[in-house]
């Protein structure tokens, strides 16, 4: 028995030596001996709202692949997609599982505002970094979270752009507002209502709707009867699809407007011809129409990998990974990250590097305020219009509303 044990030991020793020799032969920047750290992408990967979340997931996957291929990171990054199903309570449960995960470097997301709120309560005290490229509800920044950054403008800026669009671009006056009672939808609708009133517009109606129904005819009958110039939806696309179709069917002549939560591919597909002419705002630029070489390269790589154009928030999550990779490079040596205490020190260093970043991404040049919001110079709201079943970029609201 002893002989066999010795033989085994010798064999494994030899194997280790050979492996060591092999790895030392490789190019500098090989990833073989580096520790692997996970980036967890949290969002609704299935369900009605998945079209808002999957482009970001794919972009994150692409970005991680590219960053690892560069070979100069002291760690290897790995994507871990977590499906919240747009359920904020389920997200909180997932967060409970994440908070003690030793190899977790950061959370990409959560994608929506409600789940950002519930997971923040679990993950922030645990010192887990979250960088969202899509949750836009403003009060998220009031949580005094230390480990949370928002990589796009919030709904205060988006909602503030809506009255400019209605009064100055469309030159309309009256608006009927509906919302879906979610943290995101109701928050945005309230901001739009207050801003429009302050700017001299007329708010004809302001109504809450239960999400997840098929029949919104009481609302659409009211909007049609009220003959408002604009119908505005604060919420997500599944409801706006049904409302848009019902409004047009009832002969509503006004303009239909929505926001980033409705600006996904399923809105175009579901509402079809009824969506023609609808306006949508988003604190996100469409990378597909960019003339920047880095953005073009991203679009090409994305199309090659997923045989689809990068959809909503793809550029944002591509940048979120870039932002983290940039912080990793700045921090340099990881130190001992095999223990919980060591990992905490490393995560804090990464967090501090992001807090003081001036990273140039494909969507914007990043810089953060102490509350985790972008600096004002990085915030822009873009206006889109549905034309022939596609989103046509009309430009930055600040430019076209002059």
């Amino acid at each position: 028995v002893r002989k066999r044990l010795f033989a085994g030991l010798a064999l494994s020793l030899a194997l280790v030596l050979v492996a060591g020799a092999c790895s030392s032969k490789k190019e500098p920047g090989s990833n073989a001996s580096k520790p692997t750290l996970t980036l967890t992408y949290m969002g609704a990967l299935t369900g009605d709202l998945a079209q808002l979340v999957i482009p970001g997931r794919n972009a994150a996957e692409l970005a991680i692949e590219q960053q690892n291929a560069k070979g100069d990171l002291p760690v290897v990054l790995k994507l871990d997609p977590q499906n919240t199903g747009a359920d904020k309570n389920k997200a909180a449960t997932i967060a409970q599982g994440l908070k003690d995960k030793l190899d977790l470097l950061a959370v990409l997301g959560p994608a929506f505002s409600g789940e950002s709120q519930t997971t923040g309560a679990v993950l922030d005290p645990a010192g887990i970094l979250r960088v969202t490229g899509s949750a836009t509800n403003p009060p998220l920044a009031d949580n005094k979270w230390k480990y949370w950054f928002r990589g796009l403008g919030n709904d205060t800026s988006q909602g503030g752009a809506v009255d400019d669009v209605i009064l100055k671009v469309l030159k309309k006056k009256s608006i009927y507002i509906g919302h879906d009672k979610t943290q995101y939808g109701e928050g945005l609708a309230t901001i739009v209502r207050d801003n429009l009133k302050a700017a001299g517009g007329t708010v004809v109606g302001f109504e809450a709707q239960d999400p997840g129904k098929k029949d919104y005819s009481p609302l659409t009958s009211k909007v049609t009867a009220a003959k408002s110039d604009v119908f505005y939806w604060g919420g997500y696309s599944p409801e706006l699809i049904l409302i848009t179709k019902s409004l047009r069917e009832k002969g509503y002549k006004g303009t239909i407007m929505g926001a980033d939560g409705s600006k996904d591919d399923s809105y175009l597909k579901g509402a079809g011809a009824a969506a023609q002419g609808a306006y949508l705002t988003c604190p996100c630029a469409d990378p597909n129409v960019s003339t920047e070489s880095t953005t073009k390269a991203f679009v090409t790589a994305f199309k090659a990998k997923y045989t689809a154009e990068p959809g909503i928030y793809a550029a944002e999550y591509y940048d979120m990974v870039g932002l983290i990779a940039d912080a990793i490079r700045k921090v340099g040596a990881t130190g001992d990250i095999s223990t919980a205490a060591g990992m905490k020190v490393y995560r804090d260093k990464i967090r501090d590097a992001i807090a003081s970043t001036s990273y140039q991404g494909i969507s914007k040049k990043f810089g953060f305020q102490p509350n985790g919001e972008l600096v004002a110079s990085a915030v822009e709201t873009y206006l889109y219009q549905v034309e022939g079943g596609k989103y046509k970029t009309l430009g930055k609201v600040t430019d076209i509303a002059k």
Partner: protein
Amino acid sequence: LPECLTSGFWPHTFDGLVLGSIYAMIALGYTLVYGVLQLINFAHSEVFMVGSFFGVYTLVFGVEKLGVDVPSSGPVLWLVLLAALVAAMLASGMLAVGLERIAYRPLRRRGAPRLAFLITAIGASLFLSNLWLVRIPIIDVTLGGAGPVFFPDVLEKQRIMTIFSYGVSNTALMIVVTMIVMYVLLDRFVTTTRIGKGIRAVAQDPETAAMMGVDINRVITITFLTGGILAGAAGMLYGLHFGQAQFNIGFIPGIKAFTAAVLGGIGNVRGALLGGILLGLIENLGVTCLATHWQDVISFLVLVGVLMFRPTGILGERVRA
């Protein structure tokens, strides 16, 4: 009169009629089954859901495999829509019969308590809606998926008339007309045919009916089939009207239709019709001058009110066609 009422009365009335017709068609299924078995078939909302899916399957098949135009017109359009309706009715009818065979008949044979039927019904409902949600392993097929499945726009939705400045769409009109036709056929079926007599006999007294030579199992099968066919038609039209089918599409209409059946008097065929239309109207007219999220509050207040003073519903219980 307040402005909201003058401008909103007719639009909300029509919305209510359309929705009420859907409720009525589903409620008839609840009430028929309750009439013969004193069972609330909670899986009935999934029978409705399957109807909307078979509607979409037929239309998609027509467009992709048979080259039906989107949108199409004339006889082709009517033929495709009729095919979708018939497919939905057959699928739902067969599913309802299958449910009775697999889920309820074994319990009936063993003389299981009422609670067992109720739990089985809820289980069957959850099973079916999840069957349309998940990817089925081995055969690797998704019947529906989590998101909505959109109807191809074979029928171009358009306003075909305007009544009191309210645009009535072709699908809305189709729903109301189908409901009336189906109801008249059902009424004739229950009152004049032999098997209809059997249904009424079983509803009044199953034991005596059996002694008089009524084949109870056959009557029950036919009852489930009839209810399923009605729900299938409702499901297909509901899906066509809103342009989508989804695994959970039956949940809300199912609960509302159950409410409607109770409102009208469960077990009572005319009560189901009355309850359905009434509930649709109450839901829509009730919010003419109120915020729309009061919809459910108002309709359930009415239900509570009716049941307080007439616990058996407006027209009373039992099949008395």
